């Protein structure tokens, strides 16, 4: 095939991008070269729309060993231990083929983590679906959950936490974000930067097939009615091979044979070889005839673009080939020396003794286009004045029941029962809590992780929304007694070529950055997923934040289970009763307008650190952050988890009870303390200028509030736990 502008456009390149390629090369590329450019220059690999703004993220901190730019971020957790972690999207493939899309998403992120020498110790996920009534939702949910479970369960890494939401904006574009945490000795971290000339380049893992060709380009474009035709671009996962690859890589990593290692993820052999060469400022020469292929007569074009899973590219020290081969033979994996590093600073590919590609590495990486796209600022919406008579006909009991059975609040056990969350024998907080917690094996330390997003807040006002999610992540970690250390972010947005969507992105990133900086909670890794759009309809802006924190002594971990009758429950933080953008306003009052709750970073930090202080002083019995649904939903969940009740105090002041119970003001926690500790807690909170209210005290069986609420916990448990199961069974 002759390469021309049309062929380039069919490969997802823009006219001027094609011209730039010809100008750089000073000739017309051949088809393989064009494909390599298209793979490296698409949005997914090049970050061409986002790069300018990602630079503003707060990425530094005392405990950061590796920030963004590597396979995953790395943080120091004391002694010689470090945690490697990252979140990544697999949205487009999961919509086309939910099982394989989700499964390979999990596989990909685990490879990113063990590529750095870390053994994965926990998985998390953030998954978002269209309206429950939409005809595709149920099957997509079922397929995605099965796919995540199918992969993670087989590898034997526990899935310890997650988030699931439903919103009609995901009808045509579901979101599947997978996160993995791994443990590594901080002196034995492996990076992707190649070094040294004439070092053997090794291919290990599965054979290369024709699956996933153009996967990265597919993930860089909007969907249309021909979406079914894109099925072949979805990769097929083989968790068994990944398990072998994991064990083999970790075995080889035990000594110093490896110079650099990179997994073959999006854009497969192309992006892995280019990244290694680019970071090492050297060239790579490959003989594509040496690449182990699954199918016959694969062309250089197909070999370079295949996204077959479970493959790694390694630059080895000279003389270590035999030793490495032995390990991969033991694990029944392919091992092939396919090339070497060179000083040419070019990617040079040979096939059937002919040179089929000759491109300077810089053209693919550093010279990739960067766009400063136009974006629109989004103003803070005006407050809504809710009229008194709107509340008149409402009963708190009914509102509470409606919210507890709402798809975005209800119990998600149907999902996490299908994930092995206890394998590896260190899960001390299972899914369903504020954060999942796993112990660092054989030590007194534990690591907590949570994943959050708030698309409604981000949609109403991206700047506030961006800040809010970081704060929520921070609170979820503190609620289990963990010191928040760092985050990873998965930025899911619509079409960046539209000013509104681009504005959502820019301002969410700005919000995330401000909050991270203030809370000293840096971003160490992440990815961007644009073009979540089908037939001109984009998703609500949905950045997912994966937070990681450390518990020094796991025996001090806190859960949200109420402990003892007679204990007092306090609300930490001030309750104003902000209802706009709350689930109450939306579902009960049918009001979708107004600003999201204000984020006050000073209060957020001060309240959080003070709660952590109380936890460390061992005077908190249980703790839960207040988020979606406000105080009443938060305390209900605590009651349901522990099968205990609460007697709620009369309200002080003029606040409307609906505002009080359902408002979604930020920076708040519910904490349970013993009566005898009240004075001590009061003193500590006042010393630290933290506002608190007494919510009530723990009783048996019921949730009670004057003569207005008397609900048995059994009853609300049924309400809370039945929606999802019923939905999936029918």
């Amino acid at each position, binding site marked *: 095939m002759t390469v021309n502008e049309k062929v380039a456009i069919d490969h997802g390149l823009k006219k001027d991008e094609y011209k730039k390629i010809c100008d750089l090369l000073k000739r017309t590329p051949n088809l393989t070269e064009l494909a390599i450019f298209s793979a490296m220059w698409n949005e997914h690999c090049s970050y061409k729309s986002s790069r300018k703004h990602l630079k503003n993220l707060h990425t530094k901190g005392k405990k950061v060993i590796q920030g963004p730019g590597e396979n995953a971020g790395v943080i120091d957790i004391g002694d010689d231990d470090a945690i490697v972690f990252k979140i990544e999207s697999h949205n487009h493939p999961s919509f086309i083929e939910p099982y394989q899309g989700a499964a390979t998403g999990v596989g990909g992120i685990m490879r990113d983590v063990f590529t750095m020498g870390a053994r994965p110790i926990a998985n998390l996920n953030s998954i978002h679906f269209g309206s429950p009534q939409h005809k595709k939702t149920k099957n997509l949910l079922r397929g995605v959950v099965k796919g995540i479970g199918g992969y993670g369960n087989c590898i*034997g890494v526990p899935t310890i936490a997650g988030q699931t939401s439903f919103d009609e904006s995901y009808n045509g574009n579901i979101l599947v974000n997978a996160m993995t945490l791994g443990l590594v000795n901080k002196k034995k971290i492996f990076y992707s930067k190649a070094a040294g000339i004439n070092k053997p380049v090794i291919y290990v893992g599965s054979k290369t097939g024709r699956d996933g060709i153009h996967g990265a380009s597919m993930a860089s474009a909007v969907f249309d009615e021909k979406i079914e035709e894109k099925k072949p671009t979805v990769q097929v996962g083989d*968790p068994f091979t990944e398990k072998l690859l994991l064990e083999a890589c970790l075995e080889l990593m035990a000594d110093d044979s490896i110079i650099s290692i990179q997994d073959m993820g999006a854009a497969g052999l192309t992006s892995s070889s280019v990244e290694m060469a680019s970071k090492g400022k050297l060239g790579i020469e490959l003989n594509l005839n040496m690449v182990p292929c699954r199918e016959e007569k694969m062309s250089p074009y197909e070999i370079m673009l295949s996204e077959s899973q479970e493959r790694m590219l390694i630059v080895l020290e000279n003389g270590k080939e035999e030793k490495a081969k032995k390990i991969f033979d033991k694990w029944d994996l392919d091992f092939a020396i396919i090339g070497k590093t060179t000083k040419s600073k070019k990617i040079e590919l040979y096939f059937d003794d002919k040179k089929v590609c000759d491109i300077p590495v810089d053209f693919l990486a550093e010279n990739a286009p960067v766009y400063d796209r136009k974006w629109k600022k989004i103003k803070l919406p005006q407050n809504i004045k809710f009229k008194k008579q709107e509340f008149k006909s409402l009963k708190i009991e009914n509102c509470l029941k409606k919210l507890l059975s709402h798809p975005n609040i209800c119990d998600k056990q149907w999902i996490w029962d299908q994930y092995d*969350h206890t394998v590896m024998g260190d899960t001390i907080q299972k899914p369903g809590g504020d954060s999942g917690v796993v112990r660092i094996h054989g030590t007194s330390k534990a690591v907590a992780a949570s994943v959050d997003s708030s698309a409604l807040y981000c949609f109403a006002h991206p700047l506030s929304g961006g800040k809010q999610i970081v704060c929520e992540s921070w609170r979820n970690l503190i609620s289990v007694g963990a010191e928040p250390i760092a985050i990873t972010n998965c930025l899911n947005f619509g079409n960046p070529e539209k000013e509104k969507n681009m504005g959502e992105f820019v301002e969410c990133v700005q919000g995330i950055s401000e909050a991270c900086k203030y809370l000293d909670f840096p971003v160490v890794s992440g990815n961007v997923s644009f073009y979540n759009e089908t037939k001109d309809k984009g998703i609500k802006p949905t950045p997912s934040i994966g937070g990681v924190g450390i518990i020094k002594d796991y025996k001090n971990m806190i859960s949200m289970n109420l402990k003892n009758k007679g204990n007092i429950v306090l609300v930490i933080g001030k309750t104003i009763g902000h209802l706009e953008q709350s689930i109450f306003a939306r579902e009960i009052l049918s009001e979708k307008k107004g600003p999201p709750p204000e984020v006050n970073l000073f209060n957020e930090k001060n309240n959080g650190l003070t709660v952590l202080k109380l936890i460390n002083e061992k005077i908190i019995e249980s703790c839960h952050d207040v988020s979606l649904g406000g105080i009443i939903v938060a305390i209900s969940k605590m009651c349901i988890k522990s099968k205990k009740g609460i007697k709620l105090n009369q309200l002080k002041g003029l606040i409307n009870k609906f505002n009080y119970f359902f408002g979604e003001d930020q920076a708040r926690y519910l904490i349970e303390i013993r009566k005898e500790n009240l004075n001590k807690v009061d003193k500590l909170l006042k010393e630290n200028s933290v506002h608190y209210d007494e919510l009530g005290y723990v009783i048996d069986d019921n949730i009670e509030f004057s003569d207005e609420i008397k609900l048995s916990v059994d009853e609300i448990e049924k309400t809370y736990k039945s929606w999802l199961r019923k939905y999936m069974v029918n």
Partner: protein
Amino acid sequence: MKSSVIIFPGSNCDRDMDVALKKFGFKNTMVWHNDDKLPKSDLIVLPGGFSYGDYLRCGSIAGKSKIINSVIDFAKTGGLVLGICNGFQILTETGLLPGVLLQNKNIEFICKNVFVKINDKNNKYFNKINKEILELHIAHNEGNYFCSDDELRELENNNQIAAYYCDEKGNCDDRSNPNGALKNIAGILNKEKNVLGMMPHPERMIDKYLSGEDGSIFFKNLLNNLKI
């Protein structure tokens, strides 16, 4: 007491089992599936996981692996062989235990705590356990035990059923059956009572910070019985 845990490619509860055995005083050795000899052992454990990917029938390839002949020989001379989860599936594939483990009735993977009622204590595994009901943990996709009527009769007549799924109070019925297993069967023994296969994972229940502690009872008791 010496134990050995077999590692098949795709095993993923091998380390957990190693940790548990050592915690309660076994001297444990890990054995690779391609070895042909077993080290001298008082107990052989086939751990959970997805041996060889379990892409065929669960446990079928492991049931024909190199090391498995030594395991079969060991069992036939009266040696103790314990198969947990995938290990149970492998034992049925070798013929050391009758029946088969089908896909869970709800066609979903299930990971949760369950209760089991010990049926027969006349064996090294459960002898002297001072509890009738244990809280253990399951995590499997194929735990739905099934066998022919004749096999079931034989299992029952010889007291080979080790444990039944039940509720907290010991009731065995459909509601306390997590996966559709025939008669709520959670684990079975061979006729000679030296081979035990069960779906629940005692190794995941060995300290109070985990899902529970009843797994500790199982291991402590097993070690004590072996010492006699």
